[in-house]
Structures are given as C-alpha cells and as structure tokens.
C-alpha cells in the first residue's frame, strides 16, 4: 500500500463511526469587519495611518521620496524598469539607479523601488502579485523598500482583499518592515528583509 492509500484509509476508518459530521458554517463578512466602520473614511488616510502604526511610511509624491532618500544617504538602488520613466526625473543625477537586480551583489542596493498591486487600509498592508515583473529579491534585500501603488488600489479590509486574490500563483502581503521580537521580546526591524518600508501612493 502506498502512503497515500495508508493515510486515506486510516482517515476513512477514523471517520466512519462519526454520524452526523460537523457541518460547514456560513459566516458573514460583517463578522470579521471592524468595530469602527472604515467605509465612509478616506481610505488613503486610514492606510497611511495604519502603515505608520507598524512603523512604515506612506508618501504621496516623488519629491518627498527623493528628499527622504537623500537625507538618509541612499543614493544607489534598483528601480523596476516599468516605473523608471515616472521616477527618474524626481530622483535626479546624484542617484545611481539600476534596472536589473544582480543577485550576486544584493548588498550594493541601498533601496529598491518595485511595483505593488494594491493596499489594505485596515492593516496598512501592501499587496504584491507575481505577474508584476519586479524581482522578489529587489523588494526584500535592500534596506529601504519603496512600493509604488495607485490610490485607487486600496482595499478596506482583509476579507475584501481576500476576495480579490485572483489567479496569481504567488501573492504576498507586506505589513511594515521585516521584524523580530525573538530576543527577549525586544522589537528589532530589518531582520532579513527591509528595515524601512515605504509605500509611495501615486494618483
């Protein structure tokens, strides 16, 4: 007998005496919705506030991004080629921007600008789907990660974003910078992924 047959026959044997079996309950979206309804509010404002609560940063224009990067001396990084035309005028000639991400020197990139496909206001979350060509590593390896989303792409809450998962083979939700509290419960950011997570929300 293969392991498949062994497991399935044990499962059937174990469940045979159970009559009736527990039914699957329906549940309403309202149940997992928040106490304070967000629907009337400006989702962009809620998103920015919730992202701030998880130590992320929401910016709404490229000039602010360029100023942030200059101030933190992050002048060398990666930018998704699809976003380059939009970003490069604001970044200026003091920046070195590459449009391919070379995995043999991941630590050379101080920032990575990649395309996100959406956001969730409730939790300050950024959504990345795999069909976007920005490499997974460019969103992960540089210390500063900038995710570009459009204002219209922000969902209200988690159940709404789940309903819009679609067919993509890989989707990742990112809620703030990479972090750990493994050492004595003390919060440290930038464990394996970015220490700074920025959402650049463009019109």
């Amino acid at each position: 007998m293969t392991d498949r047959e062994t497991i399935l026959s044990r499962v059937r044997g174990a469940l045979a005496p159970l009559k009736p079996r527990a039914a699957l309950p329906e549940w309403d979206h309202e149940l997992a919705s928040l106490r304070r309804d967000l629907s009337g509010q400006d989702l962009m404002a809620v998103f920015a506030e919730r992202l701030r609560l998880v130590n992320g940063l929401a910016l709404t224009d490229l000039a602010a991004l360029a100023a942030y990067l200059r101030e933190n001396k992050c002048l060398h990084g990666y930018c998704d080629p699809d976003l380059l035309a939009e970003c490069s005028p604001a970044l200026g000639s003091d920046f070195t921007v590459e449009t391919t991400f070379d995995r043999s020197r991941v630590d050379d990139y101080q920032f990575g600008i990649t395309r996100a496909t959406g956001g969730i206001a409730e939790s300050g979350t950024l959504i990345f789907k795999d069909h976007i060509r920005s490499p997974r590593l460019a969103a992960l390896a540089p210390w500063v990660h900038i995710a570009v989303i459009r204002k219209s792409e922000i969902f209200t809450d988690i159940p709404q974003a789940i309903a819009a998962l679609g067919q993509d083979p890989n989707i990742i939700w990112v809620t703030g910078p990479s972090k750990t509290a493994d050492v004595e419960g003390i919060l440290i950011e930038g464990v394996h992924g970015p220490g700074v997570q920025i959402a650049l929300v463009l019109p």
Partner: protein
Amino acid sequence: MATQPIDQFSKRLRPDTKASVYDGSKKGHEKRTQVLFDRFPDANRLREIAGEIKQHVVENLDTYLPQVEAKLQANGVKVHWAATAAAANEIVLAIMRARGATKMVKSKTMVSEETELGPFLEKNGVECVETDLGEFIVQIDHDHPSHLVKPIIHKNRRDIATSFEKHGLGAYNDDPEVITRRARAHLRAKYLTADVGLTGANFISAESGRLVLVTNEGNSRFCLAATQCHIAMVGIEKILPRDHDLGLFLNLLARSATGQSLTVYTEFISGPKAPTQPDGPEEMHVILVDNGRTDVLASECRDILRCIRCGACLNVCPVYRQASGHAYRSVYPGPVGAVLSPLLAGEKFPAMADLPKASSLCGACHEVCPVNIPIPDLLLRLRDKAKQEHVPSPGTPPMGMWSLLASQPAAWKTALLAGKLLDYLPTSLVPVPALRAWEGSRSLPAWRGGKFRRWMQQRTPGPHPKTP
C-alpha cells in the same frame, strides 16, 4: 512527597529562565486581549465560527484531502504523502538528491520539528539552515524550541551573545540589534547559495489549493525569492474549505499569536513562480504528513486537530509560565502539547501520560483559543485514557483513602462525624504537622460536614426557577 515530572522540571529551572518565560508569555497574552477585543464587535463569535469551520474540516478530511491534492496538482505542484516522520524525511532527501542539491534553507515549520528533519539531512550530507532568528539560535545551540511562536523565549540576550561568539559570528555582544544584524549578514549568504527552500504552511485552501504562510522576519519569503525549488511540509489537518475563510483565520491568527493585526509577511502560494517573475522556485512540492494525526482523528480527542499553532494557550497557561516549554518533553508544549503530545506519541503514550495531569483545569486555554478547542475536556479524556490503560501515575497525590470513603456511605458518614472532632481538638494534638503549624496562628472555621446532604434530602423538587 513525590511530585509530577513537570513540577520537578520547574523546580530545576534557572531563575532567569523562569523570569524570561513568565514575562514573555504574560506580555503576549495581554497584547492579544487588547488587539482582539478592541477591534471586533464580537470577538468571541469569531473564535466560535473558526472552531466550527476547523471541526468541519477535521470531520471531513476524507473528502478534503483528495480535493486538496487535485487542486495542488492542477496548479503544477508535485504532491507527496508521508504516513510517518521517516517517510517525510526520505521524500525531502529524495527531492534534494534528484536535483543534485546539497544546500537547503528552511523557515520555521513545526512538522519538521516532529520529524527531526534538520539532523536527518545533516547526517545525509545536506546542509540545512534554519532561517528564523529564534530557530537559527536553537540550531547552533543544539537546543529545542520551547514555544510555538517564540522558540527562544527561554533564552536571554547573554545566552545568545555567548552562542554567537562560540559559533564564530563575532566577538561577544549582547545588544539585540547587533545580534540581529549579524544573523542578517550570515543568513543572507545562505539563502543566495541554497538550491532548495523548505517551509511549512499555516493553511491550505481546498477551494484553490493556495498555501498560506505567515512570518514577521521575512525569512520564508527570502527562501522563496532566492531558491529554485520549494518544498512545503504540511500536516494533513491544515486545510480550510474556502478562500474566504482565510479572511477569518488571518484576522485571528496573528492577533492570537503575537497581538498583531496581521503578521508582516503573509504569503499566498498556489504554485511555482509566474513565468514573467525573475525570482523564485520553478519547482514546487507539497508533502502531506500524517505522523500520528490519523490516530488522533480516531480518538475522542480529535478536536485538537483544529489547532492553528498560535501559542495563545501557552501564553495564558499558569503551568506553562512556571514550567517553560521544555518541561513538556516534546515538540508541542503548553496546554495544546499536553493534549497533542501524548496522542502523537502512539505506543509511547504511557511515557507522556503525566502531561494531561499537569493542569489545574482552570479553562483559560479554552477561553483564548482562536478555534475554541475545549482543551480542559480533552485533558480529562486523556486522564481517563491513562486510567483505563492502567498507566502508573507517580507524583499524583494518593486518593485511595478518599475513594474508599466516597464509595461506602457508612464510612463517609462516620468520617464526617469524626471531622466534627476537629472543633474540639486542641491545636497541639492536630495530627498533620502542616495543619498544626497553620492552626498555631489561626483558628479553623467550625466543621460543616454533611450540610449539603441534609439540604439535599429536605429539598422538595419543584419547577426550575425562572431567570429574571
């Protein structure tokens, strides 16, 4: 007097370990309560529904398992089945060998702790690096995790700094930030040179075959960004019926585990990477692992298979807080471990039969469980199982005298009358030394034995009083 193994372990614990565990678990519990009840109008209803959904899955695994298999295969995933821990490990090794791979990075998975995958692979010439910071420290220390989501809750920064120094990760420095940066640099090189990334899964949707994986550090994402092959080891009970159920469970999981609304990285994986994506695995395997779960399913304690491994019951448990996770001598500590470990032990049940007894049955674990598992009931069922199977129970207070009295009405009545003597007995003649000492500075309340029985006899049965 003899004490139970878990008490003995607790007594031997270093005071600073005990303090670390106590503080860590207490903080975890307080954050959970705040973030769960602050946000939802009816947080308890959320737990009840989630419990009903998982119970439904557990009782219909015969339908869901083939359904998940078919979905995964349709998504381009190779599905393997492993009845035992050894079989699961062999499958992983065979995949590695077929690829000619010698290096693996792995993110935290409790199933691989059950199968002891890391040591097995190392023995077979495969480098297997834990990438979760806590698990990495456990690995270099040749230790075991002591909490489901905070594996090194029992260590302090000085312990870790010493381990790092010993392992060649820089001179002694116990600043948590320095420790984390050193791990970042060390593990980055490991991700980028590994061929295979191994993970677990928090959930699998039967509707879409999506695996859901949550981490805060981003280690599992790095595994799946840098390697070419993804292996997921998954317990057969991890299924959810529909994608939209994920909305409920993701709302509960992080809140219950770490007091966050959502973990930092929540990944939905339904197959190898998209063709246009430059990074990530082109090959994906899922190993569905039994390793004792079907025995649990056949038992009266199958409700425990609802567990989503959040650790909330550990954080709230007064016994766990005093004893720490290693006291449970198994992969799963705390209240969930006290149920699951004896069941997963199979023939070695007698060696674990003391765990269900290490509980005051206070019920806090049931109250916080995001899938509403009646853990105290299950503990009682396991105590009964041990009794039925005549498992010796060292360290349990002898109840022989009590059961003799309680089973013979005449003896019971006599004992109650004798108790009355305590009212007249001078303190110096009290037969129990501890009671004598206690009575030296206090006086016992008047003996009241037998009152309940008299009340019961005189009571005339009537209609139940209406609640106002």
